[in-house]
């Protein structure tokens, strides 16, 4: 079972919201749509689910063209960012509702609902109604509904975004197991790069209605195909600055280092956790002025001004920065990415 998108587009009032998108999504792993708010993740999910019209292109589910087919005939499930359950039905009835509509025999419904409830630890709440549940339990009910239904594709549109931190972590850990071995194509939209990394599988980087890059999550993280992709897959935002290489020496503002690259202008980008406040082997010193510092848990981040550009350093431990004063940060240029004037990555070598 696969879900294939063939150059699908979405046009609203003459404006193309989703540019031609071609993807092949497989079951057995998470297919993550990663991008900032407004990138088109929800639109793309709605198009795959049949809720939004497709201007051109095809959606092929399990070998059959479902482009113009009603959502209910596609055998799919969708879990929203908001907790959507039928308000006056009990948890049991909520989970059972798609099965009842589909005409599943009563005897079978009981078993399937209970199985889904067990997986999501909803057994004791089967008789309650949504307003008597916590946010996490409400979202688990919505997930149970998606699981109990024998779907060919499951769309999860930022399902954890409205949950508090603890519940989010707990549910995120369970998610891959929930859908493992069900044979359904799982599509998961998120705006958090960390979530994509934790869920693994494959990631489609989305920006401004485009899928910028698609492939195994770890590969994309290690080798972003464009500066835009590198930006999307970094939180806090990736540091970038223009670099000029001449005669084997890279010059970025006042910092210089030896670089085996052809002469020319590049954009050098490096993730914040590779820019550290202490010296390192092969390190290049960056003379910055500390602007803002933040402590979160055991990490400290410093926003500093580097030749007029805002850069960020993210380091383990608590570091004594003084706001407004100069500080020398360090980075190993080997951790960074090089992009040419066209935004495409440039490999090492002359």
């Amino acid at each position, binding site marked *: 079972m696969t879900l294939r998108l063939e150059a699908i587009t979405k046009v609203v009032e003459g404006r193309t919201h989703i540019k031609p998108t071609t993807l092949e999504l497989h079951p057995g792993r998470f297919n993550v749509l990663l991008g900032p708010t407004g990138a088109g993740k929800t639109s793309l999910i*709605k198009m795959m*689910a049949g*809720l939004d019209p497709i201007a051109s292109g095809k959606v092929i589910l399990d070998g059959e063209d479902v482009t113009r087919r*009603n*959502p*209910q*005939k596609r055998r*799919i*499930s*969708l879990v*929203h*960012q*908001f907790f*959507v359950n*039928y*308000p*006056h*039905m009990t948890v049991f009835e909520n989970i059972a*509702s*798609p099965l009842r*509509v*589909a005409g599943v025999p009563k005897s079978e419904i009981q078993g399937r609902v209970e199985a889904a409830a067990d997986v999501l630890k909803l057994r004791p709440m089967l008789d309650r*109604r949504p*307003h*008597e549940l916590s946010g996490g339990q409400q979202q688990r009910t919505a997930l149970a509904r998606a699981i109990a239904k024998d779907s060919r594709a499951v769309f999860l549109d930022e399902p954890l975004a409205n949950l508090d931190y603890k519940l989010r972590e707990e549910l995120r850990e369970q998610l891959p197991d929930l859908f493992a071995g069900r044979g359904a194509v799982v599509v998961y939209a998120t705006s958090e790069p960390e979530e994509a990394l934790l869920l693994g599988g494959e990631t489609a980087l989305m920006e401004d209605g485009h899928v910028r890059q698609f492939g195994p999550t770890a590969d994309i993280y290690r080798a972003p195909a464009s500066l835009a992709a590198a930006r999307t897959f970094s939180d806090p935002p990736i540091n970038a600055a223009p670099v000029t290489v001449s005669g084997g020496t890279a010059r970025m503002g006042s910092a210089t280092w030896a670089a085996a690259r052809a002469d020319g202008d590049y954009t050098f980008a490096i993730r914040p956790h590779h820019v550290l406040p202490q010296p390192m082997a092969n390190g290049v010193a960056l003379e910055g002025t500390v602007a803002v510092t933040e402590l979160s848990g055991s990490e400290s981040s410093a926003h500093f001004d580097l030749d007029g550009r805002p850069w960020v350093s993210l380091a383990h431990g608590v570091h004594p920065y003084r706001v407004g004063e100069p500080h020398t940060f360090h980075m190993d240029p080997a951790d960074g990415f090089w992009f040419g004037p066209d935004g495409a990555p440039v490999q090492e070598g002359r």
Partner: protein
Amino acid sequence: MNKTWNQKAWLLVLPVVLLVAFNALVPMMTVVNYSVQETFGNNTFFWSGLQWFEQILTSERFHAALGRQVLFTSIILLIEVPLGVAIALCMPKKGVWVPVCLVLMALPMLIPWNVVGSMWNIMALPDIGLLGYFLNEVVGWQFDYTQDPIDAWVTIIAMDVWHWTSLVVLLAYAGLVSIPDAYYQAAEIDGASRWAVFRHIQLPKMKSVLTIAILLRFIDSFNIYTEPFTLTGGGPGNATTLLSIDLVKIALGQFDLGPAGAMSLIYFAITLLVSWLFYTLMTRNDP
């Protein structure tokens, strides 16, 4: 615990005490006062106990008026609530027509009650009224609300439906537009029918606003006075003499202050009891 005693706090509650006293307690106690006394004029009063309450509760005239009142309120609720919900469902959710619809809906409610009564009074007259003439001459219905009780009822019900369905529409519409699209999408994916969407999403989500709408329509229609008074004056005969019209006849027509006071209190108690029962039943399972 060290408590600070500061008598100045009384000054802060004084305005609200005065307000409640003058707009509720004093008029209410005046009525209570009338209801337990007999008067022969000249402001001389004699204690009469519960005599007037007994008289009202056993009076056939009161029973008849109460019956008409219950019938009127039941009919207009049965028409206005489903009709209001149906209209709200048909209204556009977004676009340029939304403000147009809302203003059109709000118009009848902006018209003063006695004007509504006068409008319908003239409009339904069989000889010169647009509606009355049309019914007689074009439809062929021998319609005359000033002579025929059924016609009079049809007219006051039509008038109330015209005047107040909008309230239900606006409240139901407010409930409908507050339902996130995600619910409809979930229903679409589940393959729920149009009826199931109404039954399982729209109706439950509208429940609280509909409770308020029904409550407001119940109270207003049960206490209705101005419109039927201007339209039919309670006639023909006593056919449309609703409770409030009868009450005014007793109090100001016959100047029977004692029975009128007792009837007011009974009337008030019925309205309060039904409202309380309805609201309690509707909200009993709410979060």
